């Protein structure tokens, strides 16, 4: 595949990206990403779905420069960024931001919310008064009270902390946010409100998301397009409806049929189809 | 496993070589005119030179070192400059005293610390506070002060044990026991304080692990879980500390042997190092490094046995 979006210029492109981690105790390096091609267009959400160990989180970290890219290229807005210098990287944070999975560890417990939100603004040389105003606006945007700025993370619930993390990501008005399992640690009801907030923000600001998750149903509602990653390779990419309703790759099909749905009759049908598919392949479960 | 041991022994040998060279060079820096020191201020300069030449001190330092090394690898650590004793022989005579002291302390520490640590970690409450206070007290008092207090109370005031002297075990086991008891006890105080804290902390950590709850849910009794699963998982960090303590004892032995007049390695260290008796100091340094390498190897093997995840091979 050359480009997934021939008719429009991509904001972010990955071409044949490989990432490997050093092996423990002189063992060979393990390759986590084995040639990834991806495109995210402006104001688009690309959903990236995969199981644990598939490399989905590593893609996000490679884009953000948190892990080194062994080979291949990462291009953002026409500029190659996988080889960016530390200084250029810091400047890129204006455009590239992140929301992590765990709302408990992604906020420094000893800094007030205001200090945490000020961090990106100060790093980009914001002045005090503008910073304060911006923090107030950000808290308002994620529907937290203004006095939250003076409080510590431990006074907030998981969902509220994730709102704070979203506010931090928004602080510099980025053009792309890597959302790394942003709702996986949250309860069902909280999850829904956070997803709605992310959608609203995209409507308003035209920010693009790379939305990483293990949950197909979440990815499907959030993403214009979905990419399925398995063992370091993208096995299937396409419009959300197409991938989740008529998957082409057998792996995507198994993934879809494996996720149980909250409907007894429907779940019974899925179970039967999954059993039939397994019998057809008569392959042993990959887990064993 | 064998390959692991072999690799560690080789790297230990390299370390020994490097440290021996460094120590030899460093020990040669001070301009000690050994011949002059031996013969006195009034001696004739030519006699002094002759004496230095006889000791081989007129040669370049590196030549001296390689000469020393060539003999050392054959087990000949030379003779003392000042007393003309055979260093290997002297060490061989004194080593058993120090070793028995250190083994005694390690044994006492291991047994007492594990009992106290498990007791405190499992029972918590008052037992826990008692062990913690003990830990603080043991850590707070300098080791030799504890020794002095023990001597004052048990030897001078109560007269239960001799304050000074040593009876070899082959002469009289009872006498040996009474001469070794106070030294062992005084060195054990600090060790027990440290290791029991470590065991306590590790026991508390392990008791919080999910698998302990699962084992309980399988119907196993708490004593069984504590003595099989908790102890095994909690002992690795304690062993590391015990290994470090054992090495630290080499230093403690210096003071204790000096105080009790025990004819061990520690007791000789002070006088020989003060005079800069290079062959003896070199022998002591080498002995220490060998001890450190062996203890670390032993600790790692034990930990590998206790914790399969850390196991090499």
């Amino acid at each position, binding site marked *: 595949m050359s480009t997934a979006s021939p008719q429009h210029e991509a904001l972010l492109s990955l071409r044949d990206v490989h990432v490997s981690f050093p092996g423990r105790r002189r063992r060979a390096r393990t390759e986590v990403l084995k040639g990834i091609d991806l495109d995210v267009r402006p104001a688009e959400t690309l959903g990236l779905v995969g199981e644990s160990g598939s490399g989905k989180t590593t893609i996000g970290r490679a884009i953000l420069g948190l892990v080194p890219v062994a080979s291949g290229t990462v291009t953002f807005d026409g500029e190659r960024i996988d080889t960016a210098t530390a200084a250029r990287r810091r400047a890129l944070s204006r455009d590239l931001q992140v929301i992590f999975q765990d709302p408990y560890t992604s906020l420094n417990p000893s800094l007030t919310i205001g200090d945490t939100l000020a961090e990106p603004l100060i790093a980009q040389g914001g002045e005090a008064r503008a910073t304060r105003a911006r923090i107030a606006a950000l808290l308002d945007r994620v529907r937290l009270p203004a006095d939250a700025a003076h409080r510590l993370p*431990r006074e907030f619930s998981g969902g509220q902390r994730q709102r704070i993390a979203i506010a931090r990501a928004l602080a510099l008005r980025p053009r792309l946010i890597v959302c790394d399992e942003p709702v996986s640690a949250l309860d069902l009801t909280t999850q829904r409100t956070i997803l709605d907030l992310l959608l609203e923000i995209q409507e308003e600001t035209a920010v693009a998301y790379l939305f990483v998750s293990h949950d197909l149903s979440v990815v499907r509602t959030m993403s214009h397009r979905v990419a399925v990653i398995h063992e370091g390779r993208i096995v299937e990419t396409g419009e959300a409806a197409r991938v989740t309703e008529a998957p082409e790759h057998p792996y995507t099909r198994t993934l879809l049929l494996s996720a149980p749905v909250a409907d007894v009759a429907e779940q019974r049908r899925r179970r039967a189809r999954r059993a039939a598919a397994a019998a057809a392949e008569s392959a042993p479960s990959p887990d064993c | 496993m064998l390959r692991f041991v072999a690799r560690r022994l080789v790297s230990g040998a390299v370390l020994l070589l490097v440290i021996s060279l460094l120590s030899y060079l460093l020990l040669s820096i001070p301009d000690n005119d050994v011949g002059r020191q031996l013969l006195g201020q009034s001696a004739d300069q030519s006699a002094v030179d002759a004496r230095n030449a006889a000791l081989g001190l007129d040669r370049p330092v590196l030549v001296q070192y390689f000469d020393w090394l060539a003999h050392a690898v054959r087990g000949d650590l030379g003779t003392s400059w000042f007393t003309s004793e055979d260093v290997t022989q002297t060490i061989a005579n004194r080593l058993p005293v120090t070793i028995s002291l250190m083994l005694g302390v390690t044994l006492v520490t291991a047994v007492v610390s594990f009992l106290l640590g498990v007791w405190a970690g499992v029972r918590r409450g008052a037992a826990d506070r008692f062990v913690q206070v003990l830990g603080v007290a043991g850590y707070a008092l*300098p080791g030799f002060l504890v020794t002095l*207090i023990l001597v004052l109370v048990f030897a001078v005031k109560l007269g239960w044990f001799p304050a000074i002297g040593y009876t070899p075990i082959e002469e009289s086991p009872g006498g040996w026991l009474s001469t070794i008891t106070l030294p062992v006890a005084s060195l054990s105080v600090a060790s027990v304080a440290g290791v029991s804290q470590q065991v306590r902390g590790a026991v508390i950590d392990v008791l919080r692990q999910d698998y302990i709850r*699962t084992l309980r*849910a399988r119907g196993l009794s708490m004593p069984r879980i504590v003595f099989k699963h908790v102890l095994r998982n909690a002992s690795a960090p304690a062993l590391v500390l015990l290994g470090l303590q054992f090495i630290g004892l080499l230093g403690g032995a210096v003071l204790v042997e000096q105080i009790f007049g025990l004819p061990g390695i520690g007791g000789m260290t002070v006088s020989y190092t003060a005079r800069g008796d290079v062959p003896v100091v070199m022998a002591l340094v080498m002995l220490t490094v060998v001890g450190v390498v062996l203890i670390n190897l032993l600790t790692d093997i034990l930990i590998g046995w206790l914790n*399969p995840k850390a196991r090499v091979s």
Partner: protein
Amino acid sequence: MSEANRGVWGVDPPQGTRMSESVQGAAAARRRGAFRRLLRNPLGAASLLLLALLVLAVALAPVLAPQGPQTASLGDAFAGASGAHPLGMDSAGRDILSRILYGGRNTLGGAVLSVAIALLLGVPSGLFAGYYAGKFDSAATWVANLVMALPAMVVLLASRAILGSNPWILMIVLGFLVAPQFFRMVRGIVADVRGEPYVDAARVSGLPDVRIVARHVLIVVRGPVIIQVALVAGLAIGLQAGLEFLGVGGGATATWGAMLNEAFQNIQRAPILMLWPGLALGATSGALVLLATALRDALEDRAGTPAAARPAERRAAGEAEAGVAGGERAQLLSIRGLAVAYARPDGTDAEVVHGIDLDVRPGEIVGLVGESGSGKTQTAFSVLGILPDGGRVSRGSIIVAGQEVAGLPEKRHRRLRGTTVAYVPQEPMSNLDPAFTIGSQLVEPMRHVVGLSRKQAAERALELLRMVEIPEPEQVLRRFPHQISGGMAQRVLIAGAMSCDPELLIADEPTTALDVRVQADVLDLLRRLQAERGLGVLLVTHNLGVVADLCDRVAVMNEGRIVETGATDRVLRDPQDPYTRRLLDAVLDDAPPRAPWRPVEARSETA
């Protein structure tokens, strides 16, 4: 430890008892109060006062001391206390008070020098090694381990042979020898913090490394370093005095160690000579260690030790109360009016489950659904009798296979576990003991709970692994937990739960930690086991899909209460309670996929 805590409470911990935060016991906001808390702690205040007095007295030695430290009048040797010489005279007729005061200058000065050197070497290198890892880290760690492994006393003696006996030079050497204590501690903390997502977030925010270290790292290191300073100072004073006691360094200068040596020489004649230098040394060193302990408590914000965890009181549940809640009771598991409470440090109780009713009949799978903090895990633990320390069944009745277990003594409750009621946990990996093979962990309960012979138990273990569809069971028996996958570990745990033939299985989020494909397999396995053996299952979960897949009936739990119970199909299709409805509304199964992307022309400037 924190993860375990979270699991135990099954609640969103309000204080976020995470590793990162316990590392950060010395958090900034709490720090303001830390000094005040230190002073309020009697031990802390006393040791601080003692140290201040010592420093003052030693600094003012020329003013306070009756005479010079070396002034001797042999005629007064061993003289007792008198007006002019409040502490008496030593064996050479020197004034003991003067020698203590002047000696303290060497002792305290030397300790300050050593600690300063150690700080200067250990802290920056530890910061660097911990933050950047890599080659410098490996090299520095190797050196630190080597130096830690060397017996300090021996090295000091050897270095005296090289560097001469100037006491200050020896203190510098000592500084080098204790530097690894700082290095290792700082490096460890920094390496932990380095892996925290909030540090990654700071990097993504564009903060340069220097500022990340200043903002996020130093704050965490500060507290532990202060504590370590006190401990290392105590250590340095002890070693220094030991050297002086041996007559190394110092020579004729008055030092506490030399005074002790002199006293020791005269131990038979005048043991009292040991008192004052011994006291000075012990008090200084002790005050430093106590100060460190008090500092740690102050920084960790636990000025008062929390009330010792009360041994889980097993107040017998009122039989009368049990009868109050109505309805016919199931034979296998029947819960009526169950409340679970935890003892707070201040002695009051926090109730997390507020009186619930629940039944599981033989051969039935009942789902207990709720969000975190709803009390579902606490309910499961109550049935098993494995509530964590401080937690207890405060009222209500739990009947398991005809036996009331609320208020049952631990010993008798234990007899039910494994054989009547079994448990499948959430996290497969953390629920296997890493130090024992799979085989030994499977065999142990069968031998000690059921009393099978070694051979019988081994055969049955093999059978169990086949039953849970593990390929090559003979090999798996010999493996350690870290050598198998998460899905396989969960099968092993299910096999373990089935090993003593229970009638009731309590599965606490048994598939939450697994990938969907493995989850589907494990759900199939549970369904098959239940069908083959007529097991009753209480399935605790937050996943409504899992409920739809497996459960006959479902109970929805919210904030410690069961809000709705009924047949699964009915509850999922036609929820009666508003909370159940909200829960179902949040499920995205039926939500439509997002429409394809359309190019956006202008990028809005407002956020």
